Structure formats: structure tokens, C-alpha cells
């Protein structure tokens, strides 16, 4: 763990002396390289300005100098914790553009793998958030559960984190019995674990005092900033791309959209914990209803979508992820735009954290579930 901070200027602000505290790019609480310049009045924040760009790799430019298929590995690296969703968005956009049919078996497997990825991403968030709050132990319990998902997906795709499993028209390879049985076992294993987390963490009085009524973000702020995912669902609006802009075969499944009206950190926490429960429901149904058939459809050798612009949105673990592609009929994209959820979720931090205490602002930032490569791309 690196300990680095810089002391910057000291300014006198009327009768208040404020100083600038730098939550530097290297800091235990910012998950990734994010710098937050905080102007503090004692323990209160008068202005918190996030400075990003430390891990900006310019994926959008990379989208302009390789073929459509060659861009697929890039999609996993944008948000490495929920990589399947990002690949899904890009693959979906190209399939929409080139009017490629995806066989039902492939769609079902896409749903299964996406939901498994959502659970593993939420488990990482859960552990890391508690680490921020000072409870070191749940991180390792969550990672224990996550190992099972990673083992399943490694057996299927060959990768533990940055999967590149979807192809235009379907999947890279078909699923086998081991994966189906493993998913079924995982669902049975995970349900009691969620009960344990509820007893040990959610009902813990110290934890509740840290999160209740802290960091209120209301639905109007979410709308103006484009914040989506658990942020807007924790503010009372049941907006989920899977329900309101259905894609793939999500309308074949019966699941709830958890949402809470309070808008505080606790609401966002509960939304994510219940999303894990709902993902388990979707997994059960998908595994039971998995149809037979081919795992990939008829796809031309070199994809050249017709000229035009197309979008495809998915519900990633952090919120609404949309890909907008502009094609000029060639095998190389003209423009690839990645609309990532953490970018919008962080943009409201400056307004939401005004006047908060440092501890509470960090609890708020953790509850936004930021992955910095998602912001910077």
C-alpha cells in the first residue's frame, strides 16, 4: 500500500480557513486511479472535484483502427469486473446493424453468463465497500463466493476476469453439462450465503449508522446527470434497461427490479444485495429453460455493417451501458462511442458531496460503485 499525498495551497476564505486535501491517485479508498481535490473546512468538504484521466487508454480511437471483431477484446477491458455486459453491448450493436440473427440457445447462455458476471461484480463491490468502512473480513468471504463463479466461467471461456466470450451471432463455444450443473449448484450454495451476509453485515448497527441517511441522491439529480443502475434505483425510480428497453431474452424471465425511495447509501447497498438475489432467480429460470440448438448463427466472414449509426444498451453491473457505432460500410468502424455508467455516476459527486464530512463523502463514493477504467476508458 503506497502512502502518498500532496499538501497544496492554504487559502483564507473570509473568516474560514480552508485547505486543499488531495485524495491522490494513490489512495486506499479510491478504487483505481482517481484523484479527488477536496477543499476542506476542517472536516467538512466545501468542494470535491474529481480529476480523472489517469488510466485513459483511448479505447474509442482503438475502435477506429481495427476491424469490428478485433475490437472485441477491448470491450472486456473497459470495466473488467463486469466484462460480459460490455462485450454484449458491442456485439449487440453490430448484430443490430448487420441484422444478424442470434439463435435462442446463444441468447440464453448470454443471459446466464451475464448474470453470473453481475453477481461476481457485486460481490467485489460488497467486499471493497466494507473494506472502505473498516470491516476487513467480509471481503474475503465475498471473494470465496466469487471464486466459484470464476471457476465456472474459466471452465467455459478460459478466462477468469476479462472474458471475450460472445461473438457476432452467438458465442465462441457451446456450454457443457459441467457448466450447467455448476451453475445450478452455485445458485443453491449462494442463497444461504446471502442470508449470512444479511445477519452479519446488513443488520450490524455500526454498519447501519454509517450508511443510513448518508449521501442522499434524489431521483431528479439522477435524471439530470444520467446516473443509472443502483444509483437511480436507490433513489426510487425502478429504471432497469432489462425491463424498460428489453434486449436479448430478458422479457422471458420473471424477476423483480429492487428499488428503494430513500436515496441514501443504505438504499443503494440494499438494491445491490437484492439484485444478487434476483440474478439468482434469473439463473435458475434460464438454466431450466435452456433450449437446444446451435450456439452461433450464420455470420459472414468479414462483418461490414451497412452505413448508419446504431446503438445498443445493456444493464451492466454499474448501470446503463450503451454503445453507439457509426459505420460507413467498411470492415473498420468509423466511430465507436462507449457510454459507461461510472462516468455519469461520478459526475454527480461534486454536487452531492458539498458540505459533507470526509468520512461520509467516502461512504458516498463507495456506494456509487465506481470502476475507474470505466470512467476513463
Amino acid at each position, binding site marked *: 500500500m503506497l502512502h502518498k499525498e500532496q499538501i497544496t495551497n492554504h487559502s483564507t476564505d473570509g473568516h474560514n480557513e480552508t485547505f486543499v486535501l488531495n485524495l491522490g491517485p494513490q489512495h486506499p479508498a479510491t478504487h483505481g486511479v482517481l484523484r479527488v481535490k477536496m477543499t476542506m473546512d476542517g472536516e467538512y468538504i466545501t468542494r470535491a472535484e474529481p480529476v480523472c484521466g489517469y488510466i485513459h487508454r483511448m479505447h474509442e480511437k482503438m475502435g477506429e483502427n481495427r476491424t469490428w471483431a478485433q475490437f472485441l477484446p477491448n470491450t472486456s477491458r473497459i470495466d473488467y469486473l463486469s466484462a460480459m455486459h460490455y462485450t454484449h453491448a458491442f456485439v449487440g450493436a453490430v448484430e443490430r446493424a448487420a441484422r444478424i440473427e442470434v439463435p435462442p440457445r446463444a441468447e440464453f447462455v448470454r443471459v446466464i453468463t451475464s448474470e453470473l458476471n453481475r453477481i461476481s461484480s457485486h460481490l467485489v463491490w460488497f467486499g471493497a465497500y466494507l473494506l472502505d468502512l473498516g470491516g476487513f473480513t467480509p471481503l474475503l468471504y465475498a471473494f470465496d463466493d466469487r471464486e466459484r463463479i470464476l471457476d465456472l466461467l474459466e471452465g467455459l471461456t478460459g478466462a477468469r476476469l476479462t472474458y471475450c466470450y460472445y461473438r457476432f451471432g452467438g458465442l465462441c463455444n457451446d456450454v457443457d453439462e459441467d457448466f450447467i450443473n455448476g451453475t445450478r449448484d452455485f445458485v443453491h450454495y449462494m442463497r444461504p450465503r446471502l442470508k449470512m451476509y444479511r445477519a452479519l453485515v446488513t443488520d450490524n448497527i455500526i454498519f447501519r449508522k454509517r450508511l443510513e441517511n448518508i449521501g442522499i441522491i434524489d431521483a431528479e439529480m439522477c435524471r*439530470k446527470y*444520467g446516473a443509472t443502475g443502483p444509483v437511480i434505483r436507490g433513489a426510487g425510480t425502478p429504471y432497469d434497461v432489462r425491463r*424498460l428497453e428489453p434486449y436479448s431474452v430478458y422479457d422471458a424471465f420473471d424477476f423483480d427490479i429492487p428499488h428503494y425511495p430513500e436515496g441514501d447509501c443504505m438504499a443503494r447497498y440494499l438494491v445491490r444485495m437484492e439484485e444478487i438475489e434476483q440474478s439468482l432467480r434469473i439463473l435458475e429460470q434460464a438454466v431450466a429453460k435452456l433450449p437446444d440448438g446451435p450456439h452461433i448463427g450464420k455470420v459472414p466472414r468479414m462483418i461490414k455493417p451497412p452505413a448508419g449509426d446504431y*446503438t445498443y444498451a445493456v444493464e451492466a453491473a454499474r448501470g446503463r451501458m450503451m454503445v453507439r457505432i457509426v459505420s460507413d460500410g467498411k470492415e473498420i468502424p468509423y466511430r465507436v462511442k462507449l457510454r459507461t455508467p461510472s462516468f455519469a455516476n461520478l459526475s454527480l459527486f461534486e454536487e452531492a458531496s458539498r458540505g459533507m464530512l470526509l468520512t461520509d463523502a467516502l461512504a458516498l463514493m463507495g456506494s456509487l460503485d465506481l470502476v475507474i477504467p470505466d470512467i476513463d476508458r
Partner: protein
Amino acid sequence: MTAAPLEELIAVFRAMTESDNTEQEVSGWDEGAASSRESVAVVDHDANGWHLDVSIPLDRLVEAAGVLDREEFAFDTITGVDWIAAGDMEVVYDFFHPGRFLRVVLRVRVRREQPEVPTILHVFPGAGWHERETHDFFGIRFSGHPDLSPLLLPEDADYHPLRKDFTGVA
């Protein structure tokens, strides 16, 4: 998808763009040619991913954003596109509705030599960061924006990487 709000929006935007074209499905599209697209077009969501496509003149942009704000749309993203062959830059604004299945796209076009677009930050504060990013990548100036300093590029960057004539940091 509820038809009523869509029709109201079509009427409002048509009045704004002074267009009296009849509705037409848009699926194909020529590179760089601005005039081949209707100003206000209904789009098939399965084909492209949104419902309403509005090409708006620069001076009505903030007003159009205000219309969407009143209809309780949420701000999605801003995409810049460099049409170097036509000498234009296009800025595409995406909006989604958090309560119903409705997606709207606003487009503006500016010349490449003088890319200036009014900011919609005062209507949708979330646009602040997206406009900074578009400025970083394309050099489009958003007039009225309080701070167009680089968001993702280094603080002293004076190049714009997503322009089609960008060949590397000189």
C-alpha cells in the same frame, strides 16, 4: 411504447425545426450528407436503437434540451463524429426516459474549422463532463461552459485525438 408523448414531441420538434416533411423510416444513411436526412424522423427501435431522431439548428439546441427536460427525460451521452469528407463535425445527444420505453436523439452539425456549439449544461448539469470530453477529443468549443479544461487528456494537451486528421502527438 406509449404513442401520445412521442406524437407531442414530434409536433414540438417539427415546429422548432420548421419542417413539414412526412414521417419516414430511416434505416440507410449517406456518409457526410446532411440534407438526406429528415429533420424530425421516427426510427424503428429494433433497427437502430432509438425512437425519435431530431436534427436541430444550433440556435434551438438549448430550447430542445429544455423540452426534453420538461418531459422528464434523462441525459444519456454526447457523441462527437468527425465527418472530414464533408467538412463537418456532428454532435449527437442521446436521451432516455427513466419511466417509459422512449429514446430521443438530437443532432447538430458545425463546420470543422469553426466548431462552436452552445452548452446545455444549464439544463442538464450532467452534460458538463460529456462536453469536456467531446472538446478533448474533437476540439469542439461549447460556448457558455464554465470550464473546458481537459477531462481525460493531460492538463496541457493541445491536440484532439479523435479528429480524422490526427496522426499522433506532434
